[in-house]
C-alpha cells in the first residue's frame, strides 16, 4: 500500500470520527430528554412554581422562574460532571492555561456560555409555555444560523453536498414534529420568544465556539463554557431572590436520592452531548457538526417513546394518531436520508475546513 492510500485512509478515519461524534451528540441529546422530562415531576423543580406563585407573583412569572431554576441546575450539573471528565483525561492543567488567557481564548467561551444559556433557557420556556414538540422544532432551526455564521464569520468552506444534507436534515426534523404542530396550534408569545432564543442561541454558540476551538482543546473549551453559564445563572438566581422570588427554597430536595439521580443523569447526558458536539466542530466544521447534531430530534422521539410510551411521547389521541405517528415516521426516514448524504461526502473535502495555503 503506498503512502497516498494510507493518507487517504487517515482522512477517512478523521471524517468517520467526526461523524461518530456528531451522531453520539444527537444520541446523548435525545437521551437527555428523558431525565429532562422526568425532572418536572420532582419537587425540586415542581415546587419552585408553587412557591413563587404563593409569594404573590403571576402564573407567567412563576413559570419563567421555574425555567430559570431548571436551566441553572442543568448548567451546574454539567460543569461538575465535566470536572470529573477532564480530571480523568488529565486536562485540568490545560483548563487553567486556557482560563487565564481571557483575551485570546476564554472570552469566546464566555460568549458561547451566554449564547448557550439563552438557548437552553429558551428551550425550557418554549416547552413550558407551548409544548416540548414546539421546543424541539424551534431548536432544530439552529443549524441555519450556524451554517450562515460558519461561512460568513469563520470562513469555513461548505460543499454543495453538505448544504443539501443540512437542508434535508432540517426538513426531516421539522416533519418529525409537524403532526403535533398541526393538531395543537395554540399560540403563546413567551413560548414563541423561547423558541427564537433556542434557535438563535445555539446557532450563535456554534459560531463563538467554532472560533475558539481553532485554538483550544474541545474538552477544556466546553468545560469553560459550562462554568461561565453556571456563574451567569447563579448571579441571575441571586438577583431574583433579592427581588423577592423564593428561588432557593427547594434546594434541600436535592438530598432526595431519586432527585439526585435524575439531576446526575441530566448532567451526564447533556455534558457528554456537548463533549461530542464540540469534538465534531474541529473535524467536520460547524455547519456539518450542527446538522448531524440535529438528529437529536429523531433520537428524542425514540427515547421518549421507549421510556414514557409512544402516546405520552408524541402526545396523540385516537383522532390525531394517524397524522402524528405518520409525520414522525416520515420525519425519521428523511433524517436518515440527510445523515446518509452527509456521511457519503468525500473525506478529501474535509482535510481542511478552510482550504490550505
Amino acid at each position, binding site marked *: 500500500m503506498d503512502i497516498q492510500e*494510507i493518507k487517504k485512509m487517515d482522512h477517512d478515519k478523521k471524517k468517520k470520527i467526526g461523524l461518530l461524534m456528531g451522531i453520539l451528540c444527537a444520541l446523548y441529546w435525545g437521551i437527555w430528554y428523558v431525565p429532562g422530562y422526568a425532572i418536572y415531576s420532582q419537587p425540586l423543580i415542581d415546587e419552585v412554581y408553587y412557591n413563587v406563585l404563593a409569594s404573590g407573583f403571576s402564573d407567567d412569572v412563576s413559570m419563567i422562574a421555574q425555567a430559570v431554576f431548571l436551566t441553572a441546575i442543568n448548567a451546574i450539573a454539567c460543569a461538575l460532571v465535566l470536572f470529573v471528565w477532564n480530571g480523568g483525561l488529565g486536562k485540568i492543567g490545560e483548563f487553567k492555561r486556557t482560563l487565564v*488567557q481571557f483575551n485570546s481564548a476564554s472570552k469566546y467561551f464566555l460568549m458561547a456560555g451566554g449564547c448557550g444559556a439563552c438557548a437552553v433557557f429558551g428551550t425550557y420556556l418554549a416547552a413550558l409555555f407551548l409544548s416540548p414538540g414546539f421546543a424541539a422544532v424551534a431548536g432544530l432551526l439552529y443549524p441555519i444560523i450556524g451554517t450562515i455564521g460558519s461561512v460568513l464569520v469563520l470562513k469555513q468552506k461548505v460543499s454543495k453536498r453538505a448544504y443539501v444534507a443540512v437542508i434535508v436534515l432540517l426538513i426531516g426534523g421539522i416533519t418529525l414534529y409537524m403532526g403535533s404542530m398541526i393538531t395543537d396550534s395554540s399560540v403563546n408569545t413567551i413560548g414563541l420568544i423561547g423558541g427564537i432564543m433556542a434557535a438563535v442561541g445555539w446557532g450563535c454558540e456554534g459560531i463563538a465556539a467554532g472560533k475558539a476551538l481553532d485554538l483550544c482543546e474541545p474538552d477544556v473549551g466546553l468545560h469553560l463554557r459550562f462554568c461561565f453559564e453556571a456563574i451567569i445563572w447563579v448571579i441571575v438566581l441571586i438577583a431574583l431572590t433579592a427581588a423577592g422570588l423564593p428561588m432557593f427554597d427547594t434546594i434541600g430536595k436535592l438530598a432526595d436520592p431519586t432527585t439526585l439521580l435524575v439531576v446526575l443523569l441530566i448532567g451526564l447526558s447533556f455534558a457528554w452531548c456537548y463533549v461530542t458536539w464540540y469534538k465534531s466542530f474541529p473535524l467536520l466544521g460547524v455547519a456539518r457538526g450542527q446538522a448531524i447534531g440535529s438528529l437529536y430530534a429523531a433520537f428524542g422521539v425514540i427515547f421518549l417513546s421507549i421510556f414514557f410510551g409512544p402516546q405520552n411521547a408524541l402526545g396523540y389521541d385516537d383522532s390525531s394518531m394517524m397524522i402524528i405517528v405518520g409525520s414522525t415516521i416520515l420525519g425519521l426516514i428523511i433524517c436518515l436520508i440527510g445523515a446518509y448524504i452527509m456521511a457519503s461526502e468525500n473525506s478529501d473535502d474535509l482535510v481542511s475546513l478552510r482550504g490550505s*495555503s
Partner: protein
Amino acid sequence: MMQNCPMKFRIMEFLEDGPKRTDEICNALSKEYSGYDSAYGKGVIKYDCIELVSAGIINEGDSIIDEAGVFQKGKLLTTYSLSDLGKQYLDELKQTVKPQA
C-alpha cells in the same frame, strides 16, 4: 513567549521557524508540559495537530511510515507547517496572550 500557554498556541509557535514532523513536535512539547510525557500525552498533542490541520491553521506536508518506531510504529509521521492563516493567528496571539512563568 507561548510557554505554559494552551497547547495549540505553543504548537503554532513551535512551527514558526519552519516545518516539523509529528515525532519532533510531540516529543519536544511532551517534555515541556507537565503530565504529557507519556504515550497518552503525546497522542493528545498529535490529535491537537490533526485539529489544527482541520482548522486550516497548519498544513500537512509529506508523510512517511514510522517503520523504525521512533514515535508510533506503523503509523504515519507527517510534516506540518504553519499556514498563512496560522501566521495571521499567531501574530494576533502575540498581541493578546498573557505570558506565563
